């Protein structure tokens, strides 16, 4: 998703762009996650600023791209089960509001006006009209095609080709990339390799500590619309911000235009292990049926796992790498890469074309971990 957005905005500003992926379009984490475009879960700070910018850009994209990307400005509903968590939420929402988020408190008696099937014993909640949803794989695919033939900017797509080296010039500046089918020359290379962004950075000789954080999503059989918003509990916000390796689950429940309800997602740091976690599924199912008792008899027909790309401070790496001229990074968006993609793409395009930046990007500096990380050993299982 992030690479597609970078290509789209760069081509729109008149650049010629080649997108290289070792797999298919949306074959990475983009095809293994969900498409929540959230502001509601973000603390005031640089990530929220990026999310608010993206929210606007997603609305613009929704007008340009075909309806098949399933963009829905459906809004989010964050609920609290007791008075204590409601108080935490209220404080959180007040701070968000000061940062520019639109949010409205909903009393417990009114919750079911918004979500008729919600459990009756909840203490209250907050409605976030800016939260939206998109189908990530379709969005990425259509974004890559959206530039089309008009104008000087073009997007060339090379799939099934792995980047195996970064070409550098005499003074260490980027000259292009190497793949099995040959060298490709370009003055700028954007690392949008998501969870594998650390490895691509290493090919360029720099360290970027991107790590995987696993998530499971449960998918139900198709249903008529029983869930209208993105609904989740107050605990979710704490889980998102947590640095813990342990399994955390607070289910976000949402309906999709195609019918199935998505329940996701768990968060845990277990490397790239995709073995099914029965405990993660149990918690997702229990939390979803706690929020929506009507889902009790509904079947989960599938589940899938993905690996969010995260950096130690939970912020993405966006911008030029001062260590290697011509190298830019756009990765490490953790559980928000779909939402944050348009703002990221805009920033990358502006840097390359020399235009002014829409916001301060210092917090996303790709070299901010320099000297802080211990040398890491890459485990050699199997490979």
């Amino acid at each position: 998703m992030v690479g597609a957005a970078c290509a789209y905005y760069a081509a729109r500003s008149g650049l010629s762009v080649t997108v290289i992926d070792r797999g298919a379009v949306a074959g990475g984490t983009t095809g293994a996650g969900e498409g929540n475009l959230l502001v509601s879960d973000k603390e005031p700070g640089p990530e929220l600023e990026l999310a608010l910018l993206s929210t606007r850009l997603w609305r613009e994209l929704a007008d340009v791209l075909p309806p098949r990307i399933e963009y829905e400005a459906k809004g989010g509903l964050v609920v609290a089960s007791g008075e204590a968590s409601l108080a935490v939420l209220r404080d959180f929402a007040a701070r968000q509001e000061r940062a520019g988020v639109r949010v409205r408190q909903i009393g417990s008696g009114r919750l079911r006006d918004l979500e008729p099937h919600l459990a009756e014993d909840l203490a209250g909640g907050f409605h976030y009209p800016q939260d939206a949803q998109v189908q990530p794989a379709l969005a990425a695919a259509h974004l890559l095609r959206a530039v089309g033939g008009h104008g000087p900017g073009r997007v060339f797509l090379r799939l099934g080709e792995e980047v195996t080296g970064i070409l550098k010039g005499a003074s260490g500046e980027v000259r292009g990339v190497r793949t099995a089918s040959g060298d490709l020359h370009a003055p700028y290379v954007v690392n949008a390799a998501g969870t594998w962004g650390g490895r691509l950075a290493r090919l360029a000789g720099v360290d970027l500590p991107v790590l995987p954080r696993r998530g499971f999503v449960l998918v139900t059989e198709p249903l008529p619309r029983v869930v209208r918003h993105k609904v989740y509990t107050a605990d979710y916000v704490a889980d998102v911000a947590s640095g813990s390796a342990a399994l955390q689950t607070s289910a976000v429940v949402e309906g999709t235009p195609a019918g199935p309800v998505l329940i996701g997602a768990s968060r845990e740091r277990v490397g790239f292990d995709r073995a099914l976690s029965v405990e993660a599924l149990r918690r997702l199912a229990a939390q979803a049926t706690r929020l929506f008792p009507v889902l009790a008899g509904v079947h989960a027909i599938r589940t899938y796992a993905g690996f969010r790309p995260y950096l130690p401070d939970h912020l993405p790496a966006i911008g030029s790498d001062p260590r290697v001229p011509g190298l830019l990074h756009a990765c490490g968006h953790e559980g928000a890469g779909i939402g944050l993609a348009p703002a990221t793409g805009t920033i990358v395009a502006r840097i390359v074309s020399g235009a002014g930046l829409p916001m301060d990007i210092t917090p996303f500096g790709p070299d901010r971990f320099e000297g802080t990380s211990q040398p890491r050993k890459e485990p050699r299982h199997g490979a």
Partner: protein
Amino acid sequence: MPNSPSDRAADDPYGAVHDLVVIGAGCAGLAGAVTAFEQGLSVALLDTAGRIGGQFYRHPAPAIGAVRPEALHHDWSAFAGLRHRLEASDVVHLAGHHVWTVARQDGANPRWTVHAVTGVDGDGERPVRVHARAVLLATGAYERQLPFPGWTLPGVVGAAGAQAMLKSGLVLPGRRVVVAGSGPLLLAVASSLAAAGARVPLVVEASGYLGYARRPDVLAVNPQKLAEAVVHGAALLRHGVRLRTRSAVTDVHGADRVEAVTVSRLDRDWRPVQGSGRRIACDALAVGHGLVPQTELATSLGCATRRTQDGTYALALDALQQTSVPGLWAAGETGGIGGAQLARVEGELAGFAVAAQVRGGHEPARDGRVRELQRRRERMRAFAGAMTAMHAPGPGWVDWLDDATEVCRCEEVRAGAIREAVDEHGARDARTVKLLTRAGMGWCQGRVCGAAVARLAAGGGAPAVPPSPERRPLAVPVALELLGSLDTTAPTSSPAAPAQRPDTAGPDGAATSGD
């Protein structure tokens, strides 16, 4: 011995830790379960079905009052033998158990937890767990379908499905049934249908049977296969059934049910020969293109697979039927399509191997019986491999599809939408086609359309992204309420805690991530 381990296991099958849990009570699972028991293990045997026998020895419920179910089976005596040994054993048979996942707890003594849903057919659906020191996966296969215009019309049924229906309920799909597709099962299906009173005007086989003549080596060492062919051949002749090779049903006619089919000749690549179509009247079509190993319980655990000669995936097994994950064995069609006899041999072999492992006894490979079973397995696997290659779908079958042909029936995705995802949107494999079109996302989870979608995704040329075995981490759908109420604590004697996993990048295979 009222206090023997197996007695306790029978009293509380969900609390005990069995030596072996066998999943699937077909030929392979039955042979494995009774062999392991006779070697001294405590064994639990789970199956979704209410009755043992699997796909091959399907038989009607007693209520139907069939006098001679064996009339539809050759080889009934082999089944009777296994059934007798099972009845004489203390194997705990857990019928009506739908296994949805298998979990492994690492440690010095790995333990397995088999999660199943039971009570699905009555009320009182509930989740259960069965614990074991080893697992034998014998979940068999399902039929491969290749779509073509009209295949969704009522009256079109799966060939193997028709056979299964006939065996379990003695129901015919129609009165005049064309049998089509590819693979040796077609002959069996046609002779059963004819024996049960249907008219079978034609068996339409897409490959040429001549291929068999080119592998006399393999046929010569598998004499019983020749005998089977002769039996079916004779039965077909007796009922006036004709066989047309290198042909396929390329269209189905009828307003709201089958009235006729178009049969076209195929070239070497299975492309229909222009103008060769002929209309054959019938009221049902039984169609199938061989079987696909049902391996998802194992692939979810990361078991290694091998690509079969017809482009599907089977579990990669060692000389003693163990998968690449220690403690997990497999037998029968899960390791590659090979028929009931091979499934029995492999089940028995696995039974001996598991017993040797769990008991820590002698080296099984030195046992004369084990070596004999291994020899028979090699011989039959060679034949099965040759047969699979012979009936592998040719690349030209995609020409049977027009853009309006529905490929994924659950999500109603047409061939045109899949071609568009590949040509226009950068899909290169079944997974991305699924993400972009929803083909394979429905109730059957791509079991019906998976093969077809993978082929269409590969487009005209060589696939840009190598295909990978399908993953279905939930082998069967599970109600959220059951999932949410699972007990995930460890069994009575708690195994060691899972090993801590490093937090850094893993093997490259993870790149083809997700669903």
